[in-house]
């Protein structure tokens, strides 16, 4: 990648994105338009998040990239490699060691710290879009806090399923003011958004929007009095590390339909196993604990 500027984007573009980020931090949950650039990766790969990361990353940073909770998927590997090549900064798979975490679909299980920034890749930023296709009208609804109709969606859920079935991208109110889509994370992760000590930044490339949840900001998941917000729960614990309080993925382990549940956050699972926690089938994925240990 010779001939490219540090973190690929030119300095003027990075300054423009930083201004958008500063505005986003100043108005928690508000979608700030920015002049999204073409990136050498397809839109579906999270170019919004990549541009945010490119604008904030410095030589002293350590970058972690997760996709579906894992560091080793094609998407995560490509983005990590992209930044390794264009910045030369250190990368890590360990949440604890990262200063910037770019993510799609998950927030790490390990609590984030004040010296960390998490960057979300956002496909659709506007929470009211399903209800109102006109941008001028949704802007007005945000400006006037006309959010009552958002409950129509939750009403439909309960009418159809007997409970709020929305499981991902579950709508939240930020700082009691702006309605926000948290990106397609499971609602299991919504409580982690609330009053997090870490700065949380959201980038939507195709839709050209940046928004933010500053540290310690209240993030409230919408609900009804008689159908309160709840996170996903599992009967099982993680088969590998025995965790009973993490987000689990179902994994098929053999061709006879055998399946187990394992932590979706692979770093969290590995850390637990390294610390001696053992699940019911620790070798189910043929992956001895020491392989993921530090």
């Amino acid at each position, binding site marked *: 990648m010779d001939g490219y500027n540090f973190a690929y984007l030119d300095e003027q573009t990075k300054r423009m994105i930083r201004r958008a980020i500063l505005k986003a931090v100043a108005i928690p949950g508000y979608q700030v338009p920015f002049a999204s650039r073409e990136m050498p990766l397809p839109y579906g790969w999270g170019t919004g998040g990549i541009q945010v990361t490119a604008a904030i990353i410095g030589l002293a940073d350590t970058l972690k990239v997760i996709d579906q909770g894992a560091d080793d998927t094609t998407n995560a590997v490509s983005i990590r490699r992209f930044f390794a090549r264009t910045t030369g900064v250190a990368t890590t798979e360990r949440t604890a060691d990262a200063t910037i975490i770019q993510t799609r679909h998950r927030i790490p299980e390990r609590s984030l710290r004040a010296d960390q920034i998490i960057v979300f890749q956002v496909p659709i930023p506007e929470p009211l879009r399903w209800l109102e296709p006109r941008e001028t009208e949704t802007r007005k609804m945000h400006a006037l806090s006309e959010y*009552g109709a958002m*409950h129509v969606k939750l*009403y*439909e859920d309960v*009418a*159809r399923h007997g409970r709020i079935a929305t499981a991902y991208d579950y709508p939240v109110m930020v700082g009691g003011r702006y309605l926000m889509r948290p990106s397609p994370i499971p609602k299991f992760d919504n409580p982690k958004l609330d009053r997090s000590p870490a700065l949380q930044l959201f980038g939507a490339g195709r839709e050209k929007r940046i928004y933010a949840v500053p540290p310690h900001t209240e993030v409230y998941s919408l609900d009804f*009095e008689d159908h309160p917000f709840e996170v996903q729960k599992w009967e099982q614990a993680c088969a590998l590390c025995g965790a009973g309080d993490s987000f689990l993925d179902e994994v098929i382990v053999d061709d006879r339909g055998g399946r187990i549940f394992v932590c979706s956050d692979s770093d969290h699972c590995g850390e637990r196993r390294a610390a001696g926690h053992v699940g019911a089938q620790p070798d189910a994925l043929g992956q001895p604990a020491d392989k993921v240990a530090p």
Partner: protein
Amino acid sequence: MMAATPLLQVRGLTRRYGARIGCRDVSFDLWPGEVLGIVGESGSGKTTLLKCLSAQLEPDAGQVVYATRDEGPRDIFALSEPRRRLLMRTDWGIVHQHPVEGLRMGVSAGANVGERLMAVGARNYGRIRASALDWLGRVEIARDRIDDMPRTFSGGMLQRLQIARNLVSSPRLVFMDEPTGSLDVSVQARLLDLLHGLVADLGLSVVVVTHDLAVARLLAHRLMVMRAGSVVEEGLTDQVLDDPQHAYTQLLVASILHP
């Protein structure tokens, strides 16, 4: 308590579309519990006037003073936009000629009826649903259709759903533009009966636009006759229809009686 002030005081309302006149210098009072019919031929300015009255369209001149519940008479165009929009969603109802303009076609009948309640802060699902069921019953839609999508409804049912969606928030003032206009003649009568009953039961104040004098006759206490954007005659419904003074009204009435 007898109301001492009109619910609406309209003065000199004018709206142009470029050089063309939409409505011109319209003034009238609407009293609580009163149903005002606006009649006139196609293009006479009925819809333009109704849209200005209901704040869907900004007039070029004139005032629409509405007796708000908490602050007394206020010019609706001098209110802040949030207050005006809140008023439109709570104190007022707007029934469009074509139900699809007034409904959310992508959500169930129950959600359509419940939306206004949620918009003003209702957060108890059970109570929202109970209200929706109650209102479906009152507009004669079978309760077991509550979770059905509007697109599975007939034209008459859609119009009744639109009415329920508006009335659920107990508005004081309802604007209707040709409420039976999009319906087959056979279902018009039933809707008209239903509207007539609801307006009387709820003591609603209504401004209803129609070019169907039978609708005007059944629903309206008072009529305004419009021609080329101006009001040419007004009075009690029976007087205007049985003893029209203005030549245009005479023509209008005659054309209905002898088509």
